[in-house]
């Protein structure tokens, strides 16, 4: 089925690697919490793409179903954690009036609700 289309598994594996790098940079270097959630999702989908592409090395066999199943599971879990992170962020923003964790005003310490990486 896929044979007729040719296949570029290596290309997509490299794309996945690049996406992980990009997402990691965003997660480390950007401060707005919402953008960090986006970065976290880019890392996630980069990993999925990498994983999925390595499961598609032999077009004659088709795509390996095992990585596909794990990736579907992963996508849904990533979505639920994104929803949780966004709920935490909106709550934090409502309580503190801020949208990043960087202490611009050192007097008010960020309440622990701001830790988006927790939970799950």
């Amino acid at each position, binding site marked *: 089925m896929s044979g007729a289309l040719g296949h570029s598994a*290596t290309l997509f594996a490299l794309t996945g690697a690049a996406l992980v790098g*990009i997402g990691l940079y965003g997660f480390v270097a950007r*401060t707005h919490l919402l953008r960090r959630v986006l970065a976290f999702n880019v890392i996630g989908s980069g990993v999925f793409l990498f994983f999925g592409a390595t499961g598609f090395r032999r077009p004659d066999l088709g795509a390996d*179903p095992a990585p596909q199943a794990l990736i579907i599971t992963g996508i849904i879990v990533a979505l639920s954690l994104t929803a949780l992170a*966004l709920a935490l962020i909106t709550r934090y923003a409502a309580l503190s009036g801020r949208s990043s964790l960087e202490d611009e005003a050192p007097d008010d310490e960020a309440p622990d609700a701001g830790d988006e990486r927790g939970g799950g």
Partner: protein
Amino acid sequence: MTPALVFDGLLALLAVAAAMAAIGGRDLFGSVAFFIVYGLLIAIAWVRLDAIDVALAEAAIGAGLTGILLISALARVERTASSGESGEGGRLAKIAAALLCAGVAGALAWAALALDPQGAGLTPLISEALPQAGVGNPVTAVLLNFRAYDTLLESIVLLFALVAVWSLADDGNWGGLPGLRQHARSDGVLATFGRLLPPFGLVVAVYLVWAGSENPGGAFQGGTVLAAIWLLVAMAGITELPRVSSLPLRAALVFGPAFFLAVGAIGALAGTFLGLAPAAAKAIILAVEAGLTLSIAATLALLVAGSPQRTQG
């Protein structure tokens, strides 16, 4: 250069560009828009990798839920908080971070190139066991038979995430209605769209679950579409999402995982936890899928709707 390679190269380039723009940009709404586009491109990439099941999931989540989730979260944050991105690190720190991340990406790329190009992974094993699995779609077989553990635990993780979101509510609102009251003019464009589309969405969602046993599709894809449709009806101001304390809602949330667990327990009595007898496998998988679809739809919709913020409608 075959057209296939040109297409894939262009697709990869656009996905990387969209990801960079989502992360590097100044305008936050622009970032969200780039991220939605990015999800769409990744769904096409899954099609190119012959992973239609994943493409379906990515398309349903990317087109339906992520947009609603991110856009409404952004609007809420911007209404309450300063945009402050002032605290970003200095230039040197950024260069160091970029180098580090380039190193990680490089290591992964090296790993990809070092893989045995003839590696067959688990495909032969799965093809061999598929006749006993009860379903013809190998991905569904892995999800609900061979690796049913993962799927069961995942459905429980979803519930925990929802409980965590609910617990962010003020004490007074516990058990109340999720999010703020959505409203729309009842004879307007938005409401009419919200009245026309859902029946078709319902049919498509059930079709995806039905198709999942032999062809790409399944409970996750169908459940996601259902959740998106339900949220549309709520956004069109036609009906409200139920109270978090509502018993029917809680029953719907727990039904899928509980039924799955019961099936597993019966399997345990017969020998293996979650082991399915080949003769009954198909019927059991279909029943579990139907239950999971309902629970996944309810859980995802309420996850996107957020924590309870009021007690009165």
